[in-house]
């Protein structure tokens, strides 16, 4: 039988893959396997790339704290295609026996991954996807998130808008989970304080023809506009907002992703946009300064929020491995160590809630001279309500 198995591995190695995993070796000599499930092609490729860079950088920096354990990375391209997510996740789980699985960017892919990985013998760390469900109704002991829940960056903006005297606001985003949840979070705090949402516009995802919607907003002429857009859509939106003359007449507020990794492409159109997020490039702390410098050196481009979130996923792994003295065989102990972790992230200190979502500061930023400048901390140590989570 043993022979058979080897034969089959050989066969499959020939037929399906080029890698052949070594059979059981003593646990401590074996590297810690970190599966990476991020998009490296398609529209989210830039985000996936940054997340991977951050993760690798963190584990490299903390190599001394791993008690001699080596790290082996297994990288899988999700192509941001949700229907492939379960298959890739089960590949990392069953084929590669990954100890940690880091991913994804896209909430749809997250749903597919969670379906496979929930309550399994590996730890999933989400370095971006903000779907409320991941640390809400679908939360599980082995699912962590080092990024944010969709609720977190948007909720504080309601208060900010009221403080600025905006009473009538139009909200707008793509019609998908992350977008709707962001708008809901804003609405929650904004209407609680007496504000009024005069119109809520949901644009079919991933449409980027915004002109007709913006013309309509122009005719409503609200006190402010709150939006959730990211990536290429954010670039297009901000440019259209400027081109149609709304900029400077109606203040534009947003969840911070509107101006993350997109400022260069947006150019002067982005000036003056105010957003709330758990990070800002120009955040003034020592960790951030060092992080940004090292990142620039290693990858020859500036770090962004996605890199930070990947970096923190690396920090989380390192801190847990360190605390357990390199032995991560016992999953319960590992999870406990991760729950109690306190990370000194470039975004400030973060700890983890019961639902395994970060408790973190939210910063109010404004684009000034092509940079997100922090102008306030509307809420410090904000915890996601984790509605529906039974942990």
């Amino acid at each position, binding site marked *: 039988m043993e022979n*058979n*198995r080897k*034969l*089959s591995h050989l*066969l*499959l190695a020939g*037929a*399906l*893959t*080029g*890698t052949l995993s070594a059979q059981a070796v003593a646990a401590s000599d074996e590297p810690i396997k970190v599966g990476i499930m991020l998009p*490296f*092609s398609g529209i989210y490729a830039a985000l996936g790339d940054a997340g991977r860079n951050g993760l690798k950088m963190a584990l490299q920096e903390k190599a001394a704290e791993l008690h001699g354990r080596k790290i082996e990375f297994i*990288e*899988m*391209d999700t192509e941001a*295609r*949700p*229907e492939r*997510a*379960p*298959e890739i996740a*089960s*590949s990392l*789980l*069953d*084929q*590669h026996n990954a100890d940690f699985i880091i991913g994804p960017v896209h*909430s*749809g892919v*997250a*749903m*597919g991954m969670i*379906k*496979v990985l929930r309550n399994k013998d590996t730890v999933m760390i989400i370095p971006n996807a903000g*779907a409320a469900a991941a640390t809400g109704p679908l939360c599980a002991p082995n699912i962590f998130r080092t990024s944010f829940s969709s609720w977190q960056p948007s909720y504080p903006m309601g208060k900010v808008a009221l403080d600025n005297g905006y009473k009538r606001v139009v909200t707008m985003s793509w*019609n*998908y*989970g992350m977008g*709707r949840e962001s708008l809901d979070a804003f609405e929650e705090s904004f209407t609680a304080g007496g504000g009024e949402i005069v119109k809520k516009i*949901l644009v*079919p*995802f991933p449409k980027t023809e915004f002109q007709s919607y913006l013309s309509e907003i122009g005719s409503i002429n609200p006190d402010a506009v709150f939006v959730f857009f990211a990536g290429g859509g954010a670039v297009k939106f901000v440019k259209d907002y400027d081109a149609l003359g709304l900029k400077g007449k109606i203040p534009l507020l947003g969840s911070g992703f509107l101006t993350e990794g997109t400022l260069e492409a947006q150019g002067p159109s982005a000036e003056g946009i105010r957003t709330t997020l758990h990070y800002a490039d120009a955040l003034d702390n020592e960790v951030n300064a060092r992080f940004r410098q090292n990142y620039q050196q290693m990858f020859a481009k500036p770090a962004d929020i996605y890199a930070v979130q990947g970096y923190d996923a690396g920090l989380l792994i390192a801190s847990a491995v360190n605390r357990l003295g390199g032995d991560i065989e016992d999953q319960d102990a590992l999870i406990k160590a991760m729950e109690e972790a306190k990370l000194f992230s470039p975004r400030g200190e973060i700890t983890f809630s019961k639902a395994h979502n970060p408790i973190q500061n939210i910063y109010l930023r404004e684009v000034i001279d092509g940079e997100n400048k922090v102008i306030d901390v509307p809420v410090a140590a904000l915890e996601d309500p984790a509605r529906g989570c039974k942990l």
Partner: protein
Amino acid sequence: MLFQKRTERIFIWVFFPLALMMPLFLEQNTFYVSKLTTIMIFAIFVMSLDYLVGRCGLITLGHAMFYGLGGYIFVMIAPEYDAVNFWIYTFYICAISALIALVIGFLVLRTSGIYMIMITLAFAQMTFYFFSDSIEFGGNDGVFIYVKPDTSLFGISMFDLDNPIHFYYLCLLSLFNTLFFFRLVTRSRFGRVIDAIHENPGRTTALGYNVFVFRLMAYVMASALGAYAGYLFTMQYGFVNPSMLSWQTSGSALVMSILGGLGTLYGAILGTVVYEGLHYVLEHMTEHWLLFMGALIILMVILFKNGIAGYLEKLLEKRS
């Protein structure tokens, strides 16, 4: 004889016994089992497309619509937290999607050629956006199915769907049955008329056949089987997402079908295995796998005019 071509018989005798024994080698490695399962499922879908495109001459770029519908119909009609019977729901899903195909086919089959490609695409995009923009069906993020159906038939449960090996065999059986079924159909008198329509629709009308009705029947049949594949895919991971309905899914199925050898039916299996295998290997080798995948596809179009099956058939002919 049901399987007339020698190449096809050889293929069946090589492929199915190998596939049957595969889990014996792979008992440790559930990933390969589920990867192969996914391939089998997709091969069913590709085969149903191959029948439409290769045997009936009806080119569609919207077949993924039924693949996705197979999953979404289940989400819509099954209770969320109760296990339902697999066979009964197989029947429901095939029947409902056949009904939908009947209506859509009635509209679509009035056009032909390039216009049919486009109008099928239009309907698929409509369904895509219907589910992608919906809130109750999970929208763009998709939706979970929490309970797997049980497969008892007359009180005997043959497959435990939570067991990947059982599920693998269910899909392998389904694949074989699909091939068997399509062979029966192509060999039947109905198949004779379909062949006649494919070769010369004008002549067939002049002989007194109502070409439209025959095409519609074929369309309904292939669509229902496409939906069955989608249903199996949904069962595998308990997850449905609008991307199942996207034109990229239709496109890659078309690529696999042409790659395998259009109209050969068993070529659909060949095409799917080769395409997925290449995808898997390249993806593990390089981040820029798309480049090599694209280049390989281009090369294959230029070199293998009749797909892999056509190439094999030629090879056998030469030797004998």
